[in-house]
């Protein structure tokens, strides 16, 4: 691996965090007036914007409609200026398409789509600045946007990536760590029931370590969920005061 030491002997990481420490999460809901729901979320230096439209009548080919539940349509894109190298294609390549697909399946698991037969819910997520953990940040931002749109969900969906270095799981990887060749695992969790909505892992890892890694990821996700919970309650309070009759 590259010469960089991902975890110092003192137990500090490249950016000075402890192994299980998350990056700072900041978020705001209801950033757009026109959309049914929207949110902006920063996790460290990764920044994402999520917008939700719907549920609404299916536009385009009607054959996509499902007679027993809503279709979730996700689009993930990265701003051309989001990475150090200017991206030529903001969306449509294999990786983005896959990411859209993963977002879609994550929310299909969490959103109560059976309440809206024959309709469609659009979730658009854009990465404004990328510094690792793009998938997790998108999920977290989209969760807030879905809540803002008043669409029923079983629970929050929180996501986090974890890595594995020197027998130690590292929570919430940043770009330097991700590209440093550690085995990384991304996990989307419904924290209350401990259900995993999406699990994805890359690179080699011995079977015996899997459990510790999943455990660490679940803890990290629960950490994220606390922050999101605060954001939602704060927002709820502010708005409900305004509409107070």
């Amino acid at each position, binding site marked *: 691996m590259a010469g960089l030491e991902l975890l110092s002997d003192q137990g500090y990481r490249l950016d000075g965090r402890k192994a299980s420490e998350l990056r700072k999460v900041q978020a705001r809901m209801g950033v757009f007036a026109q959309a049914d729901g929207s949110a902006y979320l920063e996790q460290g230096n990764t920044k994402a914007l999520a917008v939700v439209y719907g549920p609404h009548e299916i536009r385009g080919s009607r054959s996509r409609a499902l007679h027993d539940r809503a279709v979730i349509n996700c689009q993930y894109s990265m701003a051309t200026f989001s990475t150090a190298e200017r991206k030529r294609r903001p969306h449509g390549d294999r990786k983005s398409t896959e990411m859209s697909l993963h977002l879609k399946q994550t929310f299909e*698991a969490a959103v109560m789509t059976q309440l809206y037969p024959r309709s469609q819910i659009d979730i658009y997520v854009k990465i404004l600045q990328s510094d690792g953990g793009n998938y997790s940040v998108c999920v977290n931002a989209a969760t807030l946007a879905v809540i803002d749109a008043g669409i029923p969900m079983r629970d929050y969906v929180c996501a986090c990536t974890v890595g594995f270095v020197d027998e130690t799981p590292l929570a919430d990887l940043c770009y330097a760590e991700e590209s440093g060749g550690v085995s990384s695992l991304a996990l989307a969790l419904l924290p209350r029931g401990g*259900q*995993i*909505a999406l*699990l*994805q892992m890359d690179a080699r890892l*011995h*079977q015996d370590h899997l459990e510790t890694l999943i455990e660490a990821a679940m803890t990290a996700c629960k950490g994220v969920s606390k922050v999101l919970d605060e954001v939602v309650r704060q927002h709820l309070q502010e708005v409900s005061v305004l509409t107070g009759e």
Partner: protein
Amino acid sequence: MKDTPLCNCERDFLLKAIEEKKRLDGRQTYDYRKIKITFGTDYGCCFVDLGKTRVMAQVSCELVAPKDNRPNEGIMFFNVELSPMASPAFEQGRQSELSVKLNRQLERCLRNSKCIDTESLCVVSGEKVWQIRVDVHMLNHDGNLMDAVSIAAITALCHFRRPDVGIQGDEVTVYSPEERDPIPLSIYHMPISVSFSFFQEGTYLLVDPCEREERVMDGLLMIAMNKHREICSIQSSGGIMLLKEQVMRCSKIASVKVSEITELINKALENDKKARKAGGRCGFAESMPQERITALKKDKTAVEMTDVSERANEIVQKAEALPQTVPSPVVPVPGVGQVGQGPQNTWGLDEEEDEEDSDEEQEEQVTKMEEEHSENKEESRGGEVVEISDSEEEEVVILHPEKPDRTPKNTGSTSHQKVAASSKKRTKK
């Protein structure tokens, strides 16, 4: 073109059957379908049959300039092609969700796990490296494409030989296989994907779902591992809720399955190597099923040429005269030869003979069935005998054709020696 819709009764039945631990084809919950690995004439060409699912992988290579950030590494490129042959729902040239999923999962499984030594593919640093391209074509879709794809891809990579290169100064020479023996790739480990499907919100779990099971499942968990029990990739898909315990259980099952499949691949590779060493032909002509009723093979045939010049003249005439004047060879009684005096029909297909044939073959069939019967008894816990594996066997009817008594009318008729076909069919038992 649309796929046939799934009706409610099928869905209900399948779910109920799964609850009772029964599967459509009589398998147990954690059983794989029959895996069959065959190779093509080329190096790096591999066919995998997983039950009725069938895929083909072909590895090819090319000298290209390396990527800027990795000047000393060869390039791996994967392409999973969902040919419309495999299912009417697949459209050509469209990036469907499934194709993205399979492509990315294969990349993740084989490239990100660094199973191939890409540094050994470097020819001239920063200038020329080998690009290894793996094309996987779906031929028939009956569920669990991912596992079939991963087996086919890794087997084809193991089977592949790239041409040797020599460097003299700035000159790079690529030697043809005749000049120098081609070189195999160096493969560190063999990641194999194992798919688990979940039903009824994760209550039930099946290994290797077939197409109809895939259509009623809630979600899928794909775990790629090697035989050293190292996980190379995990991917969940579909809207399922997993619990940690389920993931752990699946990873344990996967490690068992992976070691079985790895063994099978190694055996297949070894057999092929032996066959090639023995100098036998290992092309499709050999892999062509000999005993299928729907298959027929004809040895090298000479075309009788005695009246070619006449015919050629005839054509000249035709070109000049009106086409109607052609003595049109209407087949008065089909089945019997016509104008020319072609060689005798070499296939004993008179009805009598045929009956004899089938009688014999029935006897064979019986013994075969009995064998399998006892096998099944050992296999099946609970004594459910009727398993598909043997009813499938029923398709295989051996109708050994009579040795063709070709009349050597033509000079060109060469006798062709049949190489005993080493049947590469094996069941996973």
